């Protein structure tokens, strides 16, 4: 049976020594955090390393969580985002790197490259955007998060997230130029044209 206790209650119980309560939080957030990290790194082993460090840090710093300053979801996503930045900082100092797209082509590893090869068009799109825009687009389109959930993750409001999402897609469209004629033809040649695009 699913545990429906609120995160803040589980945190308080975990701090008082109830082992199982942190386990509930782990089960509740593991997949979300894993996907969040994976969509920034695209390498399974890297994602696993970072996710491990996220939950270790969450446990170490559980006493610093203050439900008056924000909810647990915001808190743990912030740890995850910083963990990704820390990971890339060890690889490339003095360069602000928030996800794999900030790494230059010459510094990408083979597993990352393999995944990127399967993202023929998306790679060129996402490289044109800022890390924040990439994050919002992937949260909405790939992770199918609601605007409310995205607002919690990025520490914004629903309205600001909606505007940011539209703005990001608008920027993308402007940077890519007129897409429909050329890319529709490309997709048709590849045999991946879907009926919805013909309308």
């Amino acid at each position, binding site marked *: 049976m699913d545990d429906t206790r609120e995160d803040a209650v589980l945190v308080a119980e975990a701090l*008082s*020594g109830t082992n199982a309560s942190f386990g509930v939080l782990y089960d509740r957030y*593991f997949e979300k955090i894993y996907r969040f990290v994976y969509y920034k790194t695209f390498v*399974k082993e890297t994602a696993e390393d970072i996710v491990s460090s996220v939950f270790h840090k969450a446990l170490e710093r559980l006493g610093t969580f203050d439900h008056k300053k924000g909810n647990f979801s915001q808190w743990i996503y912030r740890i995850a985002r910083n963990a990704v930045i820390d990971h890339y900082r060890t690889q490339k100092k003095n360069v602000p790197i928030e996800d794999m797209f900030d790494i230059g082509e010459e510094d990408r590893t083979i597993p990352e490259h393999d995944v990127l090869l399967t993202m023929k068009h998306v790679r060129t799109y996402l490289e044109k955007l800022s890390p924040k825009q990439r994050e919002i687009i992937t949260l909405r*389109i790939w992770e199918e998060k609601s605007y409310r959930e995205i607002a919690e993750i990025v520490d914004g409001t629903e309205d600001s997230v909606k505007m940011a999402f539209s703005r990001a897609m608008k920027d993308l*469209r402007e940077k890519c130029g007129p*897409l*429909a004629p050329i890319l529709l033809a490309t997709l048709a040649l590849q045999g991946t044209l*879907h009926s919805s695009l013909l309308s």
Partner: protein
Amino acid sequence: MNDDRISPLVSELIAHDESLRGHEADLRVLVSHMLHERPLVTIDTTFKENLRTRILSGHLRSVLSPYQKAERWAFRLVPLGMVALLVLMLFPERTHYIPLSTQTDEVQTSTEVMDTRMADDGGSGSTANEESAPASSPVFKGGGGMGTMETVDTDTAVESTMAPKMMAMDTQPMEPAPFTIDPQPAGPRIMVREVTVTKPSFIVVYTFDRNGGEMVFGVSPLLRPGSTENVPLYTKFKTQSSESYFAKLHTDNGNRLFTESEDAPLTDTYGNPFQVPVIIE
């Protein structure tokens, strides 16, 4: 299933921004590509379960109640207290001090010292004489200042100001730093409210790296001698309220570029670098 999401997403985008109306075809292409090229995320259940076990087995050791934490700290402080007691017993004369409340009028407060220095510099402090104060103490004259502990030589009854070296660390007086940073919002910039230096200097913000060591996080522009207000300092990454930061003042070695190994931090009369916490709200 992906195709079912294209139209609603495009409609959403247009609802949020009317200027996108008329570009539905392009948006459909973009959204379609994003959906169809989404990388497959496969979670290794063995990894997930092993991590869960590791995390929770460490949980009982790492999570303590406040009482347990206080108890631990009390035990850690007991040896320190015993050492302090031993020192007091062995060196009674060296540790005889006059509490602040009974200090004579000759002891200046930091405000009085600042006023004196500013007056000597012509008021504004913008053209401070670099040689008017020792390099290690741009603000204080003659070693006086708030919180100075004085020792009394019982033979000569001469008051002198000297570092009470035998005192425990937590009673060593704190000299105010010559710069102020107010609590501020998270972001890529830290604003220094005011800073006063007698030599070209940098304010450097630090954070902690993975190993707990200090790491430079941002450096101010070169500060000219004198007082400056509202100095913006841009950091490598955006500051976060969940992280810890602190700032030090470093004296330029003359090349007008900050180099951590060559531009030494400014220290107080006890040799401690001036250090100010940077609080991110």
